[in-house]
């Protein structure tokens, strides 16, 4: 157990770049995942023909390991594209983009299911009341239905966010230099295994505990304001 490597500034720079890439993967994938997840829920509710497609999409992402989904995107999908597009992809896109695509689609599948179960908790009267009040469908969704549905499934959404953050480590499999990749490289080069993994462990724990406890706090606030929401 040697901590001598932690006195080198280079090592800390490496950890910092790894952490930055992890954060970028997480933020991009989370934004896309939530947006796409909400779109999937809307599609499944509103369009009879799209529903089986959405179900298939969700079942694929639920029953295949995230790592395999990532490998499919990185190795297999470019092969089905036309040659011109493939050449452009090979020159311009790296594992980072594929990782974001795979992680966000995976998160979207789970998030859409959570949102759907959130909507299912709403009594039918809520929707009928918005119609009786003359609200448009969009207004009804934004002002009445969505706030209640999100409250109902909020803990599940927090745990999806947590899973997504932890899943960014899988990107190392396709050569993205995020925190886990960096840790492994430092371990391989310096053989200071304990230090090389202790630092990322602390970094990951800080982030995940922030998500967990932040989520719990927000949950309490949502419940407190739920009674008199506008």
């Amino acid at each position, binding site marked *: 157990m040697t901590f001598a490597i932690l006195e080198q500034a280079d090592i800390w720079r490496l950890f910092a770049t790894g952490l930055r890439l992890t954060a970028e993967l997480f933020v991009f994938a989370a934004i896309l995942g939530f947006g796409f997840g909400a779109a999937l829920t809307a599609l499944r509710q509103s369009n009879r023909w799209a529903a089986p497609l959405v179900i298939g999409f969700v079942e694929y992402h639920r*029953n*295949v*390991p995230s790592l395999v989904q990532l*490998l499919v995107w990185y190795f*297999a999908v470019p*092969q089905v594209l036309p040659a011109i597009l493939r050449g452009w992809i090979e020159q311009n896109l790296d594992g980072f983009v594929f990782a974001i695509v795979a992680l966000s689609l995976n998160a979207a599948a789970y998030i859409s299911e959570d949102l759907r179960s959130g909507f299912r908790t709403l009594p039918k009267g809520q929707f009928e009341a918005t119609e009786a009040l003359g609200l448009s469908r969009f207004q009804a969704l934004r002002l009445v239905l969505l706030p209640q549905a999100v409250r109902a499934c909020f803990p599940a959404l927090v745990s999806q966010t947590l899973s997504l953050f932890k899943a*960014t480590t899988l990107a*190392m*499999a396709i050569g993205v230099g995020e925190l886990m990749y960096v840790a492994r490289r430092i371990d391989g080069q310096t053989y200071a295994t304990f230090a090389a*993994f202790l630092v990322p462990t602390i970094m990951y724990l800080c982030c995940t505990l922030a998500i967990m406890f932040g989520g719990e706090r927000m949950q309490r606030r949502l419940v407190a304001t739920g009674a008199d929401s506008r």
Partner: protein
Amino acid sequence: MIDILSRFGTSLLIGQFPHGPLGGIALTVVMSAVALLCAFPFAVGVAMARTSPIAAVRRLAAVYVYFVRGVPLLLLIFWAYFVVPLVTGVGTSATVTVICALVAYEGAYLGEAIRGALEALPRGQVEASRSLGLGYWSTSTYVVLPQVLVSCLPSMVNQFIILVKDTSLASLVGVHELTFSANQINAQLLTQPLEVYALLAAAYFVLCFALSRLSQFLESKIARIRSGSTGSAAVVAIAEAI
């Protein structure tokens, strides 16, 4: 796709088994099953510690659960590589190391599932048992756990699905399970990644989808038994169902 299956089908299924180590789907399933079996008693322990009457035990278990939930599984696997040889004093194979990491991981997640069921049990069960003169351990073994563990059965199957998917991470540390076999075949063929990875995804899909249906079936069966009859009849029916 057919030609890949006919050339590499057995290596995807069982690796080089009769002539070498087990691999492919067989190793994936064996690893998941062994991990679940080893994790189960551990998870029961974690769940009981989380609901223990002793505050220090509760807190220790909570720290463990938060640690495991807060750390990516891949990092846990790398830690196992470092810690397991230190603790046991012997060098273990990659497969055993990954199983150890999965047990530590499942102990927390399955433990939380069991804790949920423990807390859902009506207080009267424990109170009645204690007033009959049974101690903490007798109450746990004869009254609480038999009821709780039956209702955990569907979530056990769900945890098995999660384990099957999580063993794919073992390919990153060189365990020759399903994903590793597919990566190897892809490296050999070079020109057919679509077919290879479609097969890989399909293999996992079939396995996990079938298991998820099993879990739904068990859930509805247990719910039916619980609602349909009461008292000792329910216990007999549940025993028959299993």
